């Protein structure tokens, strides 16, 4: 019974993300009233990737706090695995964002506050991995990483939600700029966008559980 439920949700994920891919190409674009609405179709992928980045870094922090409370290295493994996956999704969000920037603003990189903030976030988490690589003692590594993951997540909240919303820029949602229109999605576009959020979050959950099991084998060896 357990195996059957397991395969059912995996097939569900296959169908859901397949619908998102088809919908992203043939359904209406998420932004109306602009000269090139077609380029906004990338938002069906870009926004869920950014959301998963945030969730993964949040999970890394929660597991980090759990380690500090219980001093069990299993929580350190969970925290670092979430941070690795968060960084992979962060790179994907940055790449999809710069593809959008190329066609919307004329260049892959414009030093827009949103682009700068995602670069800062990536650098913060690259420093996290450098820290982990530099410390040999597992207990000390776990303690330092857990503390860093809390600070990293506070930085993630600031760089994703605060800074780009108070600084004028090109990105949709930024204040006081011609390009900073807020995307108001219709019910039809939500039929692609909401499944996309669910599908990317489920995909993250699946890869996370798989990575965790692989990392446990590596740790045991």
């Amino acid at each position: 019974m357990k195996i059957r439920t397991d395969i059912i949700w995996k097939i569900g994920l296959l169908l859901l993300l397949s619908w998102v891919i088809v919908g992203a190409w043939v359904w209406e674009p998420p932004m109306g009233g602009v000269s090139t609405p077609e380029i906004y179709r990338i938002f069906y992928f870009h926004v869920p990737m950014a959301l998963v980045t945030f969730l993964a870094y949040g999970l890394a922090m929660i597991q980090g706090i759990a380690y500090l409370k219980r001093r069990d290295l299993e929580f350190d493994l969970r925290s670092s695995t979430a941070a690795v996956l968060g960084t992979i999704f962060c790179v994907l969000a940055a790449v999809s964002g710069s593809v959008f920037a190329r066609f919307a603003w004329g260049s892959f990189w414009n030093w827009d506050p949103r682009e700068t903030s995602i670069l800062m976030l990536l650098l913060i988490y690259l420093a996290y991995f450098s820290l982990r690589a530099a410390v040999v003692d597992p207990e000390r590594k776990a303690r330092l990483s857990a503390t860093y993951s809390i600070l990293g997540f506070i930085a993630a909240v600031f760089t994703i939600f605060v800074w780009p919303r108070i600084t004028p820029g090109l990105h949709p949602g930024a204040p006081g700029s011609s390009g900073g229109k807020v995307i108001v999605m219709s019910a039809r576009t939500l039929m692609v966008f909401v499944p996309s959020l669910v599908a990317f979050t489920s995909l993250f959950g699946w890869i996370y559980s798989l990575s965790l099991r692989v990392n446990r084998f590596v740790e045991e060896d």
Partner: protein
Amino acid sequence: MTTYVPMFVSLFIWIALWLYILSLDRKVRKLSRNV
């Protein structure tokens, strides 16, 4: 043409990735059963 070709390429990549993750999942499951 500019819609359907990239759509089918994206679908192909996603299905290939799904099959790859599924095969990895099965391998890891088998390994954990043997340990």
